[in-house]
């Protein structure tokens, strides 16, 4: 059972690594075209391996941050804390999170409108829920 679980995990990890490798390869290809440089296979493999390990570290840190804030859900706040180190990355992430939040807000508002149009009673509840969520 444990061995099977371990096996499963390993297979899953391999699949994930393969997926990461593929994505990294695609990105490297784009960079190649962009900068007119060549990427060797080994370098792509190395980059994908590093990315995979760093993702593991990220996951652990994110979980730690969430626990530090006495939460059980990893939120964008944790992600922002994670990306603090690099200013540009932090800005980018903050930007994206704001966009997402605003888009979510828009969607909720649309829903509220629809729901309000459809059922007047629910809108207050939804609004409250949306407000609390946000």
């Amino acid at each position: 059972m444990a061995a099977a679980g371990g096996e499963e995990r390993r297979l899953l990890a391999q699949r994930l690594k393969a997926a990461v490798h593929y994505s990294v390869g695609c990105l490297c290809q784009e960079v190649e075209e962009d900068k007119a440089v060549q990427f060797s296979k080994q370098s792509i493999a190395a980059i994908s391996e590093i990315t995979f390990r760093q993702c593991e570290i990220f996951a652990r840190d994110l979980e730690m941050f969430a626990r530090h804030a006495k939460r059980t859900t990893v939120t964008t706040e944790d992600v922002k804390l994670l990306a603090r180190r690099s200013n540009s990355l932090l800005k980018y992430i903050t930007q994206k999170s704001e966009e997402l939040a605003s888009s979510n807000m828009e969607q909720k508002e649309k829903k509220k409108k629809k729901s309000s149009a459809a059922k007047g009673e629910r809108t207050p509840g939804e609004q409250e829920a949306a407000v609390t969520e946000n």
Partner: protein
Amino acid sequence: MALAGAGAGGVEQPVLLADLLAELGLGQAQATNVALHLLHLHLQQRDDVALLVQLPQQLLRRGARRQRVRVIGGAALHRALLPRRRRRRRRYRHRQPHGAGPDGGGGPELHLHRQVDGLHVLGRAPCRGLGGGRGALRGSGGGGGGGAGAPGPLSLALVDAAQREDGGDPHQTGLSVENRSKSVRSTVAKQTLAVFPDLRNGTPRLMLKRVMQNQPQVSPLAPQISDHEDTQEAHSEVPSKRVSSMGELQLPDVAPEDTSITVFHMKKKRRKLSISEFERAAERRLLQYQAQSTLDSTIMTRSLHMSVGSLLAPDSVEKRGLLRRPKTRKAVDMEEFEGRVEQNMLKSKGQNDLVDSQSASGIRTSILTSDAEMMMNSTELFIQPQLDEKSQSKLSALEPHLSDSKTSAQRSLISDADQEEARLKGLVSSVSKNQGRTQRYSKSSSLDDEHVDRMTRVSPETPAEQGEEKQSHSQQSNPMAQIYFTEEVVCSAEHGASAGYSEDLEKKLAEKGELQITAARDSRGETEMAPSAGEELEEGSIGAHGSPRAEHEITRGIGAESLARHSHAFSSLNKPEMTPLNESEEQGDELQDQALMLNMDSSDSSDAEDEVEHLASQEVSMKTPAFVRAPAHNLLLSTPHVAEPAAPRSPMKLLQPKTVPKKLRASPKKPREPQMPRSLIKEIFRHFAKMPVARDAFQIVEKCSERYFKQLSNDLEAYTHHAGRKTVEAADLEVLMRRQGLVTDKMPLNVLIERFFPLEYRKLLIPVAMSGNKVIPCK
């Protein structure tokens, strides 16, 4: 046991058997045990108790010559053994009431074992059998082991008959007792001396048992055995006499018990003595440690402190040795810090345009380096007039900081500052609680390590704050201020002010200087002395704030120390006055030293940065403390620098009233960020580099470390904010360390603490349960 091998030995040749065993490499005790065991086995079929008894006796005697073992005469042995048969019937009777046959046998058997052990092991390291026998006797459950391990030759001999039988029916014969002992060996554990008091009645055999029991037990500690040999032998002497004298003894049960009990006591006492001796030796070692140069240790401890701010709670003066190491460094940091704080205050108070410009955080940071130097310079007594304004502003800025910190004892300025403050507070509180001094000292030292400037700023302030809260600061501060001023005077080559105090202070300061890098500091010239004195005064005042408050008892000492520190802080300032201070330093209290250390550290750092001007700033700094302590002004007036201080005083006064509770917070990263003392960085780097390092390299290293700590503090702040708190706590630090990769799933924080921290810090961080339901740190 090489029973099989020794089995070849015949019973008829006990001596040869013993030799054989000796050849096999067994110890005398073991040899005897083995021999007896073998004989036992051989004699199982025989009921020749006498022969059995003879053999072990011979072996024992042989061994006794070398081991100084006393062997009870064969007559006594016989008597002890023979009554066994007589008591066989008795045993029946006894046993019935008890119901547990084996138990009855086990009881006397146990005694026998012990007795045998006692005889056997006198003066020897414990044998297996002895240990086993002992354990069995004590109900430790080692009966089985004891039996297996040939508990004792005598017991074996006695038990020959028992072994012969299956040990099933203890009621058999007189020897069944032994038999039972064998079968009961496993159940020996349950046996206790008190099980069958009847059997302890005074028969020769019982007497012998008692004698053997009361013999000094086998002690794993050889030296102890030798020590107690005499006692044991004496002990055995008495019982043996009793045994021999009594044909039929009806000794009270209490007697053997008492003897056995006393024997136990002896053992315990023995151990206690050894422990106390050990402690004494440890203390001696500690002293030696202290005597040695503390630099290395300070460095190490400082490095330890760097990453984790810990509250130091030195429990006793004895630990001083461990705590003293950081002393030398801390003092400097404190002085620098104080100087900078004052400058900061001056700045923030908006003395002049300079203040405004400087107050601009951005500008401050940009000018930090230059400001830092200026700040450092300001700590000196005679700062160039050019820097007067700046220094004044800085000083004024510092002043409010000081006052702020004082007023807001519990403010958490910055994540670091908060930590430091907390530490300081804890330090101060602990100081007030316990001897405190050492704690404070260590705390200050630890704090300094991390954020010298901030710490120096905060530490003097927080201790001052706490002191104020706790005691009449003013009174203390005033005398302190006076002392400082006197010190200053002295530093400025006036020396005239308060002879006694200043001298004492100087002495203490001198000690401080020695502890730290005073040598370099003291090299200051006469001219510099004045400015340095001013600096010292300022810092001393700052330090005095903290120190007297922290240590109400030691106002003078603190002042002196702080002054001394300042003097030392003004690095490379050889002040003749300092020398006497150095001398007196060692006399100062630890706490004072700590406080001074703090001050010194700050001053040192500042001094290290700059040795030049700062005359003006010096004066201002001087004023600050003077101003803070009204009475001190008088002394200031007496000083030559009075005129200059007058000018800055007014700004100081303006600043004082503001006191801005959140002053420190208002100037987020303070106009000038406190810096780590260069000397500290140099020393640590040199220690780890293990090769000469260029001066430029040190500068780079300093910049890197500054950057590192800045980033560290930023991260801590972010983590604290992330958790919705405003005070940095240990959890935040753990998150940081996890991010850094120091703490992993395999390496928990506690392990790191235990690995790198000395005992005092460990106790602070890791709750330790002490006797009396006391847990340190108490929460």
